């Protein structure tokens, strides 16, 4: 058997992405640094946030001046919302902007309904409620969630196009703290529906975290801080691109089982030396 990933695209609802890595546009030192980091990450889908226009001292220097909307599918998020109603308002405003940009991302949203400003952990109850409202309004909803398998299933039942469990808290860089929960999420979400997309969103800190996530069989990884705040965002963007592919390939290629110890890599017959005992 041989693994072909040339056509190994990430499908979420009606969208097809060539990269399994989704990258955020926040927290870079400069717009230019962001622009180059996105390019090096190999992603074709980037998240953006909706905020009030600065009415005075608008430097006329807008994020969108640094984003090729032909190249990237934008995924607007509802960051900063703490209840379902606000999340719906923000999602609609994002859609209105993307319609103006004629970007394919106009029909989807990354839903974030947070519970408090300190930990930025998602509120499962309000997230389920907002998912139902947004689905009713015609959105394809990608839900940022905890790794609770039951909440994940509830979100899918509410019509989510993808459930995106956090590996660990946003920006914590702790990687996948509970692979067991991610495994049960997959079991729930992919049961009789193997193509349902599960994306690990938030918490990854370095390349091996991304590879480990992909090796669990998730369909993609969404990250931001790990690249934007690395000492060298460009190097880390490339690392994340490679790690996503490495982890995906390793998952598809069927790793060896773990053992307490040891089987020889070199043949045991034909040795010229004496075996002990």
């Amino acid at each position, binding site marked *: 058997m041989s693994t072909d990933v040339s056509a190994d695209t990430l499908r979420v609802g009606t969208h097809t992405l060539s990269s399994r890595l989704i990258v*955020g*546009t*926040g*927290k*870079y030192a400069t*717009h230019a640094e*962001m622009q180059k980091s996105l390019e090096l990450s190999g992603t074709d889908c980037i*998240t*953006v*946030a*909706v*905020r*009030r*226009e600065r*009415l005075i001292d*608008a430097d*006329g220097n*807008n*994020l*969108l001046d640094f984003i090729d909307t032909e190249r990237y599918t*934008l995924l*607007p*998020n509802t*960051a900063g919302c703490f209840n379902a109603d606000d999340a719906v*308002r923000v999602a*609609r*405003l*994002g*859609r*209105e*902007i993307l*319609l*103006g*940009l004629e970007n394919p991302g106009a029909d989807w949203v990354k839903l974030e309904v947070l519970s408090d400003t300190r930990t930025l952990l998602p509120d499962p109850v309000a997230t389920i409620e907002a998912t139902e409202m947004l689905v009713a309004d015609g959105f394809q909803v990608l839900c940022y969630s905890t790794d609770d398998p039951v909440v994940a299933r509830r979100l899918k039942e509410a019509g989510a196009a993808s459930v995106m469990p956090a590996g660990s808290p*946003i920006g914590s860089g702790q990687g996948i703290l509970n692979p067991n929960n991610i495994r049960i999420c997959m079991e729930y979400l992919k049961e009789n529906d193997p193509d349902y997309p599960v994306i690990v969103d*938030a918490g990854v800190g370095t390349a091996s975290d991304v590879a480990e996530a992909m090796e669990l069989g998730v369909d993609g990884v*969404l*990250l*931001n*801080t790990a690249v934007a705040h690395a000492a060298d965002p460009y190097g880390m963007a490339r690392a994340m691109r490679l790690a996503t592919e490495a982890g995906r390939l390793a998952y598809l290629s069927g790793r060896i089982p773990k053992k307490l110890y040891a089987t020889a890599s070199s043949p045991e017959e034909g040795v010229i030396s004496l075996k002990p005992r």
Partner: protein
Amino acid sequence: MRVDVNGEPRELPDGSTITDLLQELKLDRRYLAVERNREVVPRERHNETRLVGGDQLEVVTLVGGG
């Protein structure tokens, strides 16, 4: 008349439309969306939409986010 724009009070001539407001604000219209009293006003209706005293307006754009 007096309206609220992004949480700030603002005086506008009676009968102003959203287009008038955006022109006065000198904002790049390609990149923004407008919400009036918690309802989005699609850009194709900015010309015809006349504001009324007390309107709550939000003018938003995209920024970096994760």
